[in-house]
């Protein structure tokens, strides 16, 4: 039996942030992870000799722009964390070869967009300026803070005074706008629309979803100002840095130790029990970075929480599945369009309607005929991940059904609807055929290709239910006060001193670490 102040279950970014902050505040912290390594969705593997692939998440704009980094940067950098960034974070290429690269220099963007359609450069600059000068505080306050907390209520009151009721309702209206509506009214160029539309996928939305307009502005705005940082050497380096910060502050980390039960007594969480029967006591708090189903269905007993909440948690819904394809290449691929060679993340898409169609197909249970291909080029920013002269492509597909009803292209036999490695490989072939159109030499320089199906994603991280990389659908009814349930307040639970963090909780997925930060702030 061991005694701690705070036990944190799971070791994803939110847990790492929470543990590091609390350890630094002199709490005796234990981080308990079921997998054989720390990191949750942060995971680097040497898939091919000398090639270090971030097999799941990889990009850190939310982290670098977030409050956790502001607080922990010095410690993490002291423990070896280094970011690499770029001035050309993202680009898009359409099937006909039209392309656009976004720069972190606003005058360059202005010029390029004006060249595509007169007025579009101006409209883009204006959209971002108006977002950052008028709406950023309120937006980030809502998507970064605890909603039922005096600081958020104070912010709302302040904004309400400044904007008055009319202006506040106006903000709500613009916050609910779909990305399609924003793009169609604001920009004439299909290429510019295509540059922005795929980014709403990274917020777990589609371009026709309510609120996707605002999320589009948040993300493209962040990328246009902050670039797309990656961790030098591979993302495991940030996990190592966190781990060292935690140890240096007398925290404990355990891997391969699966928590099966949260112990409750005298109306509060007392500790946890692990699969091997060990018991760990927590004097102050237990913090679980798990899905609602795991928390209320497995870790807690039926009588720990009201039945309505257990039912609510059971109904927590998962979103579209994702798939990763990792290429190890002999050398950087040659883009038919050379502008893209130095771009960190490129989307291959037929455009706004193409993204909309692929999302729609996934919602209808189909393998999309023409999915949006997210092509990350981490080695452009960080060549150390590959042997000298080599390159890595990090490819993500975010418009997949969790259970497959059919193939929109009518080519792949989907069997009983569950993901098999055969289906994933055949689907990866379809993607590769499209990649080759823009990367003509790709097939001749492949050292290795590794496909991770939605099922394999879930195997790597049980929070990715059905391969949903965001641990829960991000549509409006599961956002804000409703993530994971309106029946719990902020990150508390019905059990005193038990807290719920992670992508299934507000403010949702991403490497910002916000839920861990909020709980650590409340506890210390």
């Amino acid at each position: 039996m061991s005694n701690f102040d705070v036990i944190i279950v799971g070791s994803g970014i939110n847990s790492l942030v929470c543990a590091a902050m609390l350890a630094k505040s002199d709490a005796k912290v234990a981080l308990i992870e079921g997998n054989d390594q720390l990191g949750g969705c942060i995971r680097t593997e040497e898939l091919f000799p000398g090639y270090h692939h971030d097999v799941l998440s990889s990009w850190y704009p939310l982290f670098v722009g977030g409050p956790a980094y502001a607080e922990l940067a010095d410690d993490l950098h002291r423990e070896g964390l280094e970011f690499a960034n770029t001035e050309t974070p993202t680009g898009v290429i359409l099937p006909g070869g039209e392309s656009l690269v976004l720069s972190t220099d606003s005058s360059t963007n202005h010029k390029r967009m004006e060249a595509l359609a007169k007025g579009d450069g101006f409209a883009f600059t204006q959209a971002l300026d108006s977002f950052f000068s008028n709406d950023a505080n309120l937006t980030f306050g809502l998507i970064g803070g605890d909603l039922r907390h005096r600081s958020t209520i104070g912010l709302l009151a302040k904004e309400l005074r400044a904007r008055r009721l009319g202006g506040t309702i106006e903000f709500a209206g613009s916050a609910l706008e779909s990305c399609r509506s924003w793009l169609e009214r604001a920009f004439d160029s299909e290429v510019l629309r295509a540059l922005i539309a795929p980014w709403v996928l990274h917020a777990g939305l589609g371009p026709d979803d309510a609120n996707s307009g605002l999320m589009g502005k948040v993300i493209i705005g962040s990328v246009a100002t902050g670039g797309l940082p990656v961790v030098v050497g591979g993302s495991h380096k940030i996990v190592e840095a966190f781990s060292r910060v935690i140890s240096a502050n007398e925290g404990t980390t355990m891997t391969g130790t699966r928590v099966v039960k949260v112990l409750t007594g005298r109306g509060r969480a007392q500790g946890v029990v692990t699969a091997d029967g060990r018991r760990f006591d927590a004097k102050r708090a237990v913090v679980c970075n798990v899905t609602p189903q795991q928390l209320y269905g497995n870790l807690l007993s039926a009588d720990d929480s009201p039945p309505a909440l257990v039912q609510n948690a059971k109904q927590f819904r998962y979103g579209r599945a994702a798939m990763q394809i990792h290429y190890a290449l002999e050398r950087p691929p040659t883009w038919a369009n050379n502008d893209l060679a130095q771009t960190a993340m490129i989307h291959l898409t037929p455009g706004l309607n193409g993204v909309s169609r692929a999302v729609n197909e996934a919602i209808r249970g189909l393998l999309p005929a023409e999915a949006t291909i997210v092509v990350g080029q981490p080695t452009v920013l960080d060549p150390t991940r590959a042997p000298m002269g080599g390159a890595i492509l990090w490819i993500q597909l975010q418009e997949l059904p969790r259970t497959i009803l059919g193939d929109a292209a009518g080519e792949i036999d989907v069997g009983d609807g569950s993901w098999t490695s055969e289906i994933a490989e055949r689907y990866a072939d379809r993607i590769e055929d499209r990649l080759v159109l823009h990367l003509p030499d790709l097939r001749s320089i492949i050292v290795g290709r590794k496909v991770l199906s939605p099922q394999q994603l879930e195997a790597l991280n049980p929070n990715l239910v059905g391969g949903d990389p965001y641990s829960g659908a991000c549509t409006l009814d599961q956002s804000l006060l409703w993530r994971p349930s309106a029946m719990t307040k902020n990150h508390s639970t019905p059990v005193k001193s038990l807290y719920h963090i992670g992508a299934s909780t507000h403010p949702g997925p991403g490497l910002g670490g916000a839920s861990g930060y909020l709980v650590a702030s409340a506890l210390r």
Partner: protein
Amino acid sequence: MRHQTTKAADRELVVIGAGHNGLAAAIILADAGQKVTVLESNSEPGGAVKTEEVTLPGFRHDLMATNLNLFVGSAFFAKYEDRLKSHGFAVSQSTKPVCSLFPGGGYIGVSTDLEETLDSIRTYSDSDADSFRVMRSEFDRVAPHLFPLLGVPLPSAAAAKKLLAASRALGRSWPFELGKLVAQSPREFVGDNFESPEAQSLVAAWGMHLDFAPSVSGGALFPFLETMASQANGLVIGTGGAKTMIDAMVGLLHELGGRLRCSSRVDRIVVEGGQATAVICGQTRHEAAGGIIANLTPTHLFEDLVGKSHLDKRFRTHVQRFRYGPGTLMIHLALSDLPPWTRAEAQQYAYVHIGPHLEDMDLAYNQAMAGLIPQRPMLVVGQPTVIDPSRAPAGKHVLWVQARMFPAEISGDAAQQITGTDWSLIKDTVADRVMTQLEEYAPGLRSKILDRYVLSPQDLEATNANLVGGDSLAGSHHIMQNFVLRPFPGWSRYRTPIKNLYMCGASTWPGAGLGAGSGHLVGNLLTSRRRRLRDGR
């Protein structure tokens, strides 16, 4: 040329547009002693409520709107029921409001007999029948609190009070539950409640009457209310045609001393010193010292009639951003007999929904949004003559087919068969495709057709200028443009930046449908204003 000035127009109030909301407002004001003139650009009043013999003599077709449930349930109707009836208003009621048909002869029917409805659902799933029963009792619990909320201005102290009273009665967590329901998509809502694709479709299909395809966030409330309300109360249509409602409203308006002038297109609203003072119709100037109520879309009202120079930049931006939903295609059939549905029972229902499934509805919507003619639109088939035989010669029938959804501007055909992009040239080809689809569910229907009349999205707009791009809702109902955001954030209470100028109609809260909500609310607003003026306050 100088405009003639109509005489004796002192403090006259002008309503532009004789849709049912404009007429409702006019009636309330005339009833309060206000001098009212309604100006209508078309030759007939009614807006989207028109009944005409567009196919053969004796076959009366509701050209667009047909379902009068919201009207007979409205606060306006409660107040004027007897007087409207004395002017000939009559309804025919169906106790079998709607059924959904599925491929291969599958079917679920909703009737006012709850047990019969549950039996029908039970053919697909026992647990879905149980869920439907639970949903119905939930509806009974919340409806008395929810419907009054839809009948007050938003935002308002009255609405806040009603919400507060509701959470007192229904529990403190109710506002959060309501919030979730308001935020949910139909797909999410039915997925939480039903396991069978058929029961899911039964409810979600109602969303397609607005622009809520199954996966559209913010679309769940309407299908929930509409499914449950029609199960509880059935469905009513106007006897002899929906026009009975307009005729009665016009009759009542005249009785109250109000005037209606058709074929009077308003070209301009005169704004002097920030105040709307008169309207210009051709050579005629109608003084409107009592105010102007425009039952028009905000784009037409502010861009064409008021003019940008009278509006600040912020408001102009709102006008510019007002978004229309996808269009509708209407097919009217004169039939020698009812459709030979694959399920004979379907002949008894007021509406037949052919989605058939959530996937099909989502696909049709997605294609329309991308500018494509959908391969298989969702079909709402009205069978008015089942409940009101007076609409056709003895033994004959009319069929009201609404196909959802279509693009206003066509960029292509999802089926890659139709090459044209001009609605006036291809509407019959598109209608043929819809008929082929319908024939799958009613084999032999073609042989019963005596005549056919098609209204493309373009035709709908030509019939009623408020149906921009054939959008039968006069503006998307998506959550960014609904509730307090309709038509614009901060302008959901019928006032405009121009003094004395008010708006109402489907583009304003509570939106499309024949509930006379906005007409009633703006009428009340101005009646109390008039009272204040009279009392010198």
